[in-house]
């Protein structure tokens, strides 16, 4: 099931004019504040009417200005999580959670969601007695329990602390991988984008400035929509072994990669992200270093980055790897296209947060 | 000079005709203040600035007198009235002296009257029915309005088949028919007392004018009994 969006809407001082296709998986929508992300999400939800355009989820046309289709909001079968939690103040947390379930095609059990979100002790409270983060967690649970065909999440984790973010992200991943529910996810956070995104859509001033599979958009050193720090490669790897010392070995095109235990069955395909700024390049295979992962390859391109940096693209058996190093280092090392080179990555630098299944 | 007349609201039509003549004759300007007798009486007792009070009810005039607000010796009974039985359907008018005289429309459905414990027309009407020995019978059927005009309106609009009102009201309402006149001895005499209010300089003149022959004709035409 895929989402196809083509929307035009003008308000004084701002025009949204965006078209993109979001295949199954998570499509992350990002862009600076005021670029129209929320407006776009609202248009898909049916809460604002586009001046013109077409919105379809799979075969189901939700809106089509030419055909005169405009499916009512409650029939769209979308789960939304807004920037502000928008909990129903008169209902307890439990009742808030069950709200969408009443109307849902499928009644999921409350338990797993409640546990995953760590809100079991809050069930009988009312929203006013929750902290900001608690509120947002309940809102996420409420949307999940409505068994939606598409989830629209407008910065759902913005108000959460890192520990909670790490707890909740896997659930979005599971949704993506298991339930096949497409997710349109607005986020400012590079780690979230890299971890979740199947497809990336970058908005700026109401227009799509970059759009494509996450690996491409994020791995393209020319498109740095999240800022320099977000550049990185997304690789596909399989779980090869679980070691006794708590490390998991992945096989990325024949290159072994070690990272802290990943609870996935052997053989599972994973996507991992290696941020360009965390890669150290070495002319030979380094010795006596604490970093465990060495990915040999050859330099495909050298491109000047922002400031004093250079972005080096390495072709390796595991796929394209990007490294951001200083121009000074590049010169000192005499790097040039075609040269062999080893990407050194600390095992723990391929952080769990940046590795998603 | 100015003359402020506090008068029971039911006198409006007649007074409207009386005033221009007086104004022309005296050069005074007249202001007629119309409301229920009870409201007017209370206001006079509380010091309302007036010259003449014409009440539809001797009781309220007594109250004003007891409060010392009347110019001594100026009180007199100005007008009298008759009670009639009106109905929405046409028919001959009869004199009612006994229970058997009651016309047919009164025998069924509700009877519109003014409040039988509070408003003069209602009090007189109840007295009449009691004298006729019909009160026990009629009481449950009585629809009491807050004033006699509203009672008449009930009949005029067909909400009730019959009602007991003053002859003066019946005379001016084309949609109702007088079907009976209650004998005057069935109830206490209907009197409209009038008096000059204490301290008034212009009141006496107006009150005298009210008793003049010109005004008598107007009151007579309106259906009042002019009392000499």
């Amino acid at each position, binding site marked *: 099931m895929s989402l196809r969006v083509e929307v035009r809407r003008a308000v004084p001082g701002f025009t949204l004019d965006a078209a993109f296709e979001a295949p199954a998986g998570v499509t992350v929508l990002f862009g600076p504040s005021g670029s129209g992300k929320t407006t776009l999400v609202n248009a898909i939800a049916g809460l604002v009417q586009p001046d013109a355009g077409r919105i379809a989820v799979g075969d189901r046309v939700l809106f089509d200005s030419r055909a005169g289709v405009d499916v009512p909001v409650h029939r769209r079968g979308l*789960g939304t999580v807004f920037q502000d939690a928008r909990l129903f103040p008169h209902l307890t947390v439990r009742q808030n959670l069950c709200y969408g379930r009443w109307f849902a095609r499928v009644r999921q059990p409350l338990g797993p969601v409640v546990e995953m979100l760590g809100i079991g002790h809050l069930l009988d409270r009312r929203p006013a007695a929750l902290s900001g983060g608690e509120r947002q967690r309940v809102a996420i649970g409420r949307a999940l329990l409505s068994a939606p065909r598409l989830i629209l999440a407008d910065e759902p984790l913005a108000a959460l602390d890192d520990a909670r973010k790490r707890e909740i992200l896997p659930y979005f991943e599971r949704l993506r991988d298991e339930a096949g529910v497409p997710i349109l996810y607005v986020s400012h956070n590079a780690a979230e984008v890299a971890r979740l995104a199947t497809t990336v859509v970058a908005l700026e001033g109401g227009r799509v400035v970059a759009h494509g599979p996450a690996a491409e958009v994020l791995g393209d050193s020319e498109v740095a929509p999240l800022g320099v720090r977000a550049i990185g490669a997304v690789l596909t790897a399989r779980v090869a072994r679980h070691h006794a010392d708590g490390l998991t070995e992945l096989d990325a095109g024949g290159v072994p990669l070690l990272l802290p235990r990943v609870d996935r069955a052997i053989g599972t395909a994973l996507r991992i992200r290696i941020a360009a700024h965390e890669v150290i390049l070495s002319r030979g295979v380094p010795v006596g270093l604490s970093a465990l992962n060495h990915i040999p390859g050859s330099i495909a391109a050298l491109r000047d980055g922002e400031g004093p940096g250079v972005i080096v693209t390495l072709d390796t058996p595991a796929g394209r790897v990007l490294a951001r190093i200083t121009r000074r280092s590049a010169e000192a090392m005499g790097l040039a296209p075609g040269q062999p080179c080893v990407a050194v990555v600390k095992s723990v630098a391929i952080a769990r947060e940046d590795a998603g299944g | 000079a100015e003359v402020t007349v506090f008068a029971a609201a039911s006198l409006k039509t007649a007074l409207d005709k009386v005033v221009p003549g007086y104004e022309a004759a005296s050069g005074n300007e007249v202001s007629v203040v119309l409301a229920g007798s009870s409201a007017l009486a209370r206001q006079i007792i509380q010091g309302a600035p007036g010259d003449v009070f014409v009440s539809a009810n001797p009781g309220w005039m007594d109250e004003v007198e007891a409060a010392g607000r009347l110019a001594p010796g100026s009180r007199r009974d100005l007008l009298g009235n008759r009670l009639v039985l009106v109905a929405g359907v046409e028919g001959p008018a009869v004199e009612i002296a006994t229970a058997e005289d009651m016309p047919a429309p009164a025998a069924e459905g509700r009877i519109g009257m003014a409040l039988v414990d509070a408003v003069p027309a209602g009090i007189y009407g109840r007295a009449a029915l009691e004298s006729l020995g019909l009160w026990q019978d009629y009481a449950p059927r009585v629809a009491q309005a807050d004033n006699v005009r509203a009672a008449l309106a009930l009949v005029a609009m067909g909400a009730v088949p019959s009602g007991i009102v003053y002859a003066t009201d019946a005379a001016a309402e084309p949609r109702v028919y007088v079907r009976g006149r209650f004998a005057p001895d069935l109830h206490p005499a209907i009197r409209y007392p009038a008096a000059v209010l204490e301290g008034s300089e212009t009141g006496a003149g107006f009150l005298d004018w009210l008793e003049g022959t010109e005004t008598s004709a107007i009151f007579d035409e309106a259906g009042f009994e002019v009392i000499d």
Partner: protein
Amino acid sequence: MGWLGPEATDALLLSVKVSLWATVVSLPFGVLVAHALARWSFPGRQVLNGMVHLPLILPPVVTGYLLLIGFGPQGPLGPVGGFFAFRWTGAALAAGIMAFPLMVRAIRLSIEAVDPGLEDTARTLGAARPWVFLTVTLPMILPGVLTGAVLAFAKAMGEFGATITFVSNIPGETQTLPTAIYTFLQVPGGETEALKLVLLSVGVAMGALALSEWLGTRVARRVAGR
């Protein structure tokens, strides 16, 4: 209630009955009209708004007359006139109509205070508009509805002009406290009796008011989750 005398007792009970019915029956309409005025746009919205407010603007006696004409034998509502004419139901109708603008205004204001974002959210969660209304808007405006209901009840307890004009004063059927009070005020020396009834009527309405304040605070606290 021996000290009251049977007529006053009747009037009291009748007033309470009439006012309760007037309030309860008109409440759903009040909520509906308030919602329509606050959130819908349709042709004739202004006309509806004006009509709702008419009883406030007109002297009560005029409202009573209009009811009398409307439900009279020749009136457009004549066919159901029998149900109301000179009966306590008519008193309730008159009181309900007189109180309606107060009820609608109170409810409307509280509807306008509900964050439309919450209603939107409920819709995205699958609730059709009527469901949104029942499960989100209505619970959130309960304090306003309560206020509207109590205002209407209090107004109904005091309604006199329209009631007596429409259904007259029939002891035990349409003689409410205000008509009884009026009756006493019309006769010299009736003030003491009238005062007794006034206190009675004030007592009942104040009780309702206090109850509503108490309930209102509780409901508001529940709704706001405080």
